């Protein structure tokens, strides 16, 4: 099956692309997708362990099961999360 992975902000810059068609086999989870993304983009490794994931526009944990055609977005911490913004 194929899922669509979306990269944003620092992850998009490091990956050099904003999306990726990712081929997975069996009954993969978000955790399995993360392993495969890390294998294809070693430069993302440090970041992939402090991001959250959105599956089809809803927050998803690492155990969430993926289906063909799903959109899995990798969500880096947002800019205003700390008290340092405007």
């Amino acid at each position: 099956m194929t899922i669509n992975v979306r990269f944003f902000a620092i992850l998009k810059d490091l990956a050099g692309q904003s999306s990726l068609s990712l081929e997975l086999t069996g009954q993969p989870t978000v955790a399995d997708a993360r392993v495969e993304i890390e294998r294809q983009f070693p430069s993302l490794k440090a970041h992939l362990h402090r991001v959250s994931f959105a599956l089809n526009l809803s927050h998803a944990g690492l155990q969430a099961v993926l289906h063909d055609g799903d959109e899995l977005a990798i969500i880096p911490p947002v800019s205003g999360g700390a008290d340092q913004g405007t």
Partner: protein
Amino acid sequence: MMDGLFHIAIVADAIDVAVSIKRTDHPDAGAVNVFVGTTRAETHADGRRLIRLDYEAYEALAIKQMNDLASRATERWPIARGTIIHRIGPVKVGEPSVLIAVATPHRRDAFDACQWLIDTLKAEVAIWKQEIWTDGTATWVHPDARV
């Protein structure tokens, strides 16, 4: 997009503050509280100055999250009308990047709802910013690290 009483948008062009206030006002309201977040001038210790911020959104998710914020605020305060607008793309120093406006019958609720909306938006909504400096460097801003 309207979520009940709220006008919610992600825009690439300048935010018109006057138009947003007029659009948020309502006959039942005795107060319109407005927050405008702008790009602050900054000078780094090494002398380079900030030129602009580049904002990037996961638009479909960010709109969904902003609608959720509007629903939560509406449950908590007697809001007659509200506006949440965030700009994406380049925003020069001094220009607005985000506007929240809330109209309520009495001013205390307008202040409180407005503050809660901007604080929660900045903590939760899928929008990121990159600092662009005079020496050509670009820095993504994340709460736990400047990477």
